[in-house]
């Protein structure tokens, strides 16, 4: 019974292919199955046509053999190359994961040592030095965040992102979010408005992951805004979902970049002009989280006018 179950799960192509984290049409096992079926169908067709128009059965057999042989060779070549693609993808993810883990240790050592130094507990820091210690700390934090993002990405790609479901209030999450982002908002001269909604039902998902998505979207909204920015956060109920949206009057997204927005490491050109630091992984990670939460994420944007990023997650 167990053996049968194991055989069946091995044959469950869709599940096998999900492990590679690529689409079905790029998955070697699935393609081989498809090619196999094409071979069978073409052989039968060749047989049907052959016996109709050709007298000698041996010739028909030969034609079918040749046809099957050619198709089989093609199938092998195609699936081998996709197999190599999937393997390369997996090795790349593994590499990123290993390197990120290795980087974590020296970076967290740095973080704590800098914290100790700047705490003043090892002696007073000279006026002149304070600024430079700040630079060290900020850059160490940047590296730290990048490595964390990379680890999250590699976990997403190997489908090992832990997701603990529970009931929580989106309202509370947003309230905390706004408090957390107050310093950044005021430093960037951006006004953050949140219109509370009464009687919003509780959402059922992983609150720490959803919070990460909210942080990403709010962070982007604040950073990509010019002078006198205004960011509006809205929460609402849409049928059986809760909708979260962040609207900004910032630089917007150029039309040609729109389809790449959720891709890994993508930074729009006009972002580079505005010199914001970031790994380009925030939206990729956000999309993966919302997908795992069985929700949807999207945006509307007009260059120089602003953007609205939104996501919906189911209530239960």
């Amino acid at each position, binding site marked *: 019974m167990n053996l049968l179950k194991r055989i069946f799960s091995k044959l469950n192509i869709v599940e096998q292919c999900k492990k590679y984290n690529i689409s079905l049409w790029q998955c070697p096992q699935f393609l081989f199955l498809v090619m196999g079926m094409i071979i069978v169908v073409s052989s039968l067709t060749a047989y049907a046509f052959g016996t109709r128009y050709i007298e000698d059965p041996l010739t028909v057999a030969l034609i079918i053999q040749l046809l099957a042989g050619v198709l089989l060779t093609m199938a092998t070549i195609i699936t081998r190359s996709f197999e190599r693609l999937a393997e390369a993808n997996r090795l790349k993810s593994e590499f990123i994961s290993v390197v990120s*883990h290795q980087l*974590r*240790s*020296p*970076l*967290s*050592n740095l*973080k*704590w*040592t800098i*914290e*100790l130094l700047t*705490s003043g*507990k*090892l002696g007073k820091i000279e006026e002149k030095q304070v600024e430079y210690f700040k630079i060290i700390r900020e850059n160490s934090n940047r590296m*730290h965040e990048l490595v*964390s993002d990379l680890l999250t990405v590699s976990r997403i790609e190997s489908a090992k992102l*832990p997701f603990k479901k529970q009931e929580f209030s989106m309202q509370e999450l947003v309230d905390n979010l706004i408090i957390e982002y107050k310093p950044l908002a005021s430093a960037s001269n951006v006004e953050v408005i949140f219109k509370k909604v009464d009687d919003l039902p509780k959402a059922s998902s992983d609150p720490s992951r959803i919070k990460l998505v909210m942080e990403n979207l709010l962070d982007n909204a604040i950073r990509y805004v010019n002078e006198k920015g205004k960011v509006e956060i809205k929460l609402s109920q849409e049928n059986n979902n809760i909708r979260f949206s962040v609207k900004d009057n910032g630089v917007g997204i150029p039309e040609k970049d729109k389809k790449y927005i959720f891709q890994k490491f993508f930074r729009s050109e006009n972002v580079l002009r505005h010199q914001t630091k970031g790994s380009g992984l925030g939206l990729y990670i956000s999309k993966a989280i919302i997908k795992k939460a069985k929700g949807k994420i999207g945006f509307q944007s007009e260059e120089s006018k602003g953007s609205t990023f939104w996501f919906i997650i189911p209530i239960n």
Partner: protein
Amino acid sequence: MKTILFIEDESALQKTVGEILKQEGYEIISALDGRVGLKLAQRKTPDLILLDLILPKLNGFEVLKKLKENSETKNIPVIVLTNLEGIEDIDKAIELGAQSYLVKAQYELKELVEKVKKILNE
């Protein structure tokens, strides 16, 4: 004065964490590998053990297991201090008897100190 045994192979952390805990008034015993760590735990019976998981000679999980098997050391609270954040590792450490599991990258130094003080004051 309460004593803390710090089992960690990174000398940078031995220095940094050691220094701040010393300033808080604790005596710090350092071990740079799992085997020495275990020996010192048995010999000195500290009030708290800070344990890294990736260690030379004997890894943190093994050290934890042996600490909890030994009647002299099994009641010493252990805080696991590591950068491994997989759920399997966390579960394993808690199952083996760790009181707390802190992922270094997710905590500030002062938060670690708070945690230590809290456990030692219980």
